[in-house]
């Protein structure tokens, strides 16, 4: 039996819908998914695979925590995960628990420049982390921060589920978009019954989401002279992370399924994942993360990078190091 290249672990995930979405994110990247259950998730979804604390912390591979703790490394700059690594995402509100953070070989975060909303849905965050830690090799280099005028316009084309649409709008706000156009031909966002509307707005975190959502209308067409890039998992085009997604006049179109007819002259970018295509929020999360990476805008709360700013450091100086290296016993047990 071939051992999987990575494991996805949900640490204390509370919402069953999020747990199912997380399992789907794992299937998208053809990796197994398990949950450390501390909040009764196993009783509500008995088919989910669970892992106990000892197995999680004492596993053979390194632990990679996805959490925005101080000092966490950007997932865009992190080295690809080693074979057998466990990639851990945490509870929706509290994040990863301290014992995992302590045991983690590396903590990565997804930089988010959004101001009102600065977090992603847990399954979306897992999909983005898996994409950059496992699959997005040979990506375009983001050389320098680009002005916000290079940010592409965004069209969510025919989303089929109101929660998926809301979660995608949350991701758009978190990655710094201020206006998003929605082609709402499935009637999931505008003019919906109150229960549907409430669920969709809750998924979008609309109480603090400053995003402006514009209906596309039946006769939507891109502005004259614009460049349209359609991002989907099953299109014929270069991989997403090797396609130029930014630039003045660029329109990113993310269709949900195959019901949306592309305009002639559009370019295609393929969201290349080894497993089955995931749900809409996972797809939009990956596309928006890649566009944000290519823009390389700074996060709203991040301080000035240390190389540019003035800093003073206090280090215990050492003379020339010998060729040997001291290894602690716990490092040997992890080796």
């Amino acid at each position, binding site marked *: 039996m071939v051992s999987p290249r990575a494991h996805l672990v949900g640490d204390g995930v509370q919402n069953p819908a999020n747990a199912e979405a997380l399992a789907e994110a794992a299937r998208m990247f053809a990796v197994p998914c398990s949950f450390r259950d501390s909040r009764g998730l196993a009783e509500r979804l008995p088919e989910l695979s669970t892992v106990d604390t000892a197995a999680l912390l004492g596993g053979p591979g390194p632990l990679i925590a996805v959490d925005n703790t101080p000092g966490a490394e950007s997932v865009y700059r992190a080295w690809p995960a080693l074979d057998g690594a466990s990639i851990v995402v945490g509870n929706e509100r509290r994040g990863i628990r*301290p014992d995992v953070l*302590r*045991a983690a070989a590396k903590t990565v975060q997804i930089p988010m420049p959004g101001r009102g909303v600065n977090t992603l849905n847990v399954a979306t965050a897992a999909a983005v982390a898996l994409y950059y830690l496992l699959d997005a090799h040979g990506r375009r280099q983001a050389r320098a921060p680009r002005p916000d005028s290079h940010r592409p316009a965004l069209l969510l084309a025919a989303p089929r589920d109101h929660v998926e649409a809301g979660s995608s709008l949350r991701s758009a706000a978190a990655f710094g978009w201020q206006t998003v156009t929605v082609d709402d031909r499935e009637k999931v966002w505008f003019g919906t019954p109150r229960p549907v509307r409430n669920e969709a707005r809750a998924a979008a975190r609309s109480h603090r989401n400053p995003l402006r959502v514009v209906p596309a209308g039946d006769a939507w067409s891109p502005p004259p002279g614009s460049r349209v890039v359609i991002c989907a998992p099953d299109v014929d085009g270069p991989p997403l992370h090797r396609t130029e997604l930014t630039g003045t006049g660029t329109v990113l179109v993310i269709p949900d399924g195959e019901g949306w007819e592309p305009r002639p002259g559009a370019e295609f970018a393929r969201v290349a994942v080894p497993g089955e295509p995931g749900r809409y929020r996972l797809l939009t999360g990956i596309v928006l993360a890649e566009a944000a990476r290519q823009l390389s805008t700074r996060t709203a709360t991040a*301080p000035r990078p240390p190389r540019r700013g*003035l800093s003073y450091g*206090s*280090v215990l100086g050492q*003379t020339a190091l010998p060729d040997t290296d*001291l290894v602690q016993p*716990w490092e040997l047990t992890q080796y």
Partner: protein
Amino acid sequence: MPLSRSLRTDPYLMRATRRAGAPVPVRVCPPRRGFVHPADPADIVRVLTFFGPAAAYGLRGIELRQQPAAGTGPAVAALRVPGLVLLFEQPAPPWDLSGQLTDVATARLQRAGARVATGQASTRVDWPGSSLCDFMLFDGLMHEIGHHMIQHAARKHRTRAMRTADHERRADAYAVRARHAWAAQW
């Protein structure tokens, strides 16, 4: 008695007292396995409370972080101007360091109460009692606050207020004074 002619030119201590605001936030990133944060947030708050508004004036935050990826030796602390102090995790005592420490680093550790035994290829550092916590609080935190006060009093965010050697000497002298003042209360 220091006097001033305007609110802008008044001495640093008076200005700090007048402008003392919200407490300095202390954020914690848990240490990795085999490492500890010797000084916890409660210790830091206790020291900042003891030294009053002059020590906390202009500070934007204190973060307990994991060790940075690369460096010439074990990192103790850092200041990101303006006003962010980073205290790094340390190996759980006793320390077994590969190689030898410089004379300056050895003197610094011994001043903090550590017992340093230097061998051919390694150095062992024992930390009796609460000496490691005190080392982080004074040679780490107060040393960086010394740097911060120099920059903040000079109102300089992007350029150094004085040459680096002088900066380090004054920050070190501030940390030593702070240690003596702290010890004098017992």
